[in-house]
């Protein structure tokens, strides 16, 4: 039971790590290799703001989410949309270059020191019938679930959300409905970066991170996206939970190993992902 709870708590943040990447895969058909760096950028943003202003780290989202959203829109409109005209491979290379540039820029700005976002309840835990639950992990779990829920509702219920889904199904038909495909891609990247900002906060609160940690989280995001089926948000959530559970079951020594075995098995058995149609 303890393992199950820990796995679920871990799984939700894994889903959050993957959700922005999954959107870019599914909608823009872009493999964004800089997603890990985006997450670390979010983590640094929240670290700096919370220590400079002395506020609750969660409140920093008020700044980091809109800033990252705008950065994403600009990045997509100015750079990636243009490269994508030349095909998927150049766009992939651009995100790879972007990831290196961002990593080195953060190294330059913040040094290679370990960072962590401190919260007063970092070591507190609840005890429910013999199961101990870390308050911090519970908070991170709640933030992750709320983000995914809000994103799902946005995609289902708003005109922009529907336009994003329509564009992922058929770009020509979407343009016939008055949708500007390039603008939609910009918004999708904006949202992906906004979720990275939130994921960054969660990563920073739960774990120690470095400017070079992006790759680690990119790998997890990749795993989640592949298991869940590209572009499916419910799939991402389930995949995150599967990945998280596998890791907790494997323990400290074999956790990641078992997670990636699950990934390999998934690729062999159901390469289109759990929720792909």
């Amino acid at each position: 039971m303890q393992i199950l709870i820990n796995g679920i708590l871990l799984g939700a943040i894994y889903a959050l790590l993957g959700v922005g990447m999954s959107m870019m895969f599914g909608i823009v058909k872009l493999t964004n290799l800089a997603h890990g760096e985006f997450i670390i950028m979010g983590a640094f943003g929240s670290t700096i703001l919370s220590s400079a202003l002395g506020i609750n780290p969660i409140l920093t989202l008020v700044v980091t989410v809109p800033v990252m959203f705008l950065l994403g829109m600009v990045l997509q409109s100015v750079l990636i949309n243009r490269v994508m005209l030349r095909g998927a491979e150049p766009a992939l290379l651009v995100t790879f270059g972007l990831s290196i540039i961002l990593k080195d820029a953060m190294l330059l700005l913040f040094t290679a020191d370990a960072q962590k976002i401190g919260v007063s309840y970092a070591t507190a835990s609840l005890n429910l019938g013999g199961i101990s639950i870390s308050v911090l992990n519970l908070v991170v779990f709640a933030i992750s679930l709320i983000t995914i829920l809000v994103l799902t509702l946005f995609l289902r219920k708003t005109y922009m959300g529907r336009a994003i889904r329509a564009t992922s199904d058929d770009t020509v038909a979407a343009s016939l409905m008055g949708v500007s495909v390039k603008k939609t891609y910009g918004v999708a990247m904006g949202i992906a970066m906004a979720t990275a900002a939130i994921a960054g906060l969660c990563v920073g609160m739960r774990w120690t991170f470095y400017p070079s940690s992006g790759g680690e989280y990119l790998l997890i995001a990749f795993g989640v996206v592949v298991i869940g089926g590209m572009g499916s948000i419910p799939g991402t959530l389930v995949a995150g939970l599967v990945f998280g559970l596998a890791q907790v079951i494997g323990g400290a020594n074999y956790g990641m190993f078992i997670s990636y075995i699950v990934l390999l098995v998934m690729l062999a058995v159901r390469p289109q992902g759990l929720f792909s149609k």
Partner: protein
Amino acid sequence: MSEPILKVEGVQAKYGDFVAVEEATLDVPQGIIVSVIGANGAGKSTLMDTIAGVHKPTAGTITFKGEDITGMPAEKVVLRGLSLVPQGSRCFIRMTVEDNLVMGSYPKAARAKVKDSLERVYELFPVLKEKRNDLSGSLSGGQRQMVAIGRALMTNPELVLFDEISLGLAPTIIKDIYARIKQISGEGMTVVLVEQDTKRAIKTGEISHVMLKGKVVLSGRSAELGEEEIKKAYFGL
């Protein structure tokens, strides 16, 4: 006769080096059904795509309601009241029927009327109301075509281009869809019908244009065009 709602003059469209439409000139008068017929590969679909802004012309001009819309992207053309039902319906297959239709109300001007428009489409195609929560990918070909037509109507168009909507459908369904198109036209909408089925097109359209190898080779009132004349134009005899 009043100024035509759509004027296509000397339009040329290519795919790379391949000239799909060499020189197309035709008028569409307001409020009637106009048929465009021609054999496979005559350039009908490319011409429709070019008018709707999906494809960029390499020469010529397209005028809609007196405004030059040549080369204007599709997402802007639709805002002016010109909607295309593309070949093969192109529904958003991972979205429900109702979400597909509501997508048609994406243009800001159409959003205010979304409820009324939806009701009108459901009246036109009651089966879509039954299936409104189903994924459009699970529908039959005819039902998908209805979704595509409904979606186009939701954009509040004054002119709708129907590109080979009968392709691959059962005769009874084609008959039903054609009856709906006449109904839509009766409410004052201008309709352009692209067809390979010459007989049905000429019967339905008040004016017919025949395309051959990328050119409009014959135009006239359908009632006045002789069968022999059309056959010659169609096959280039």
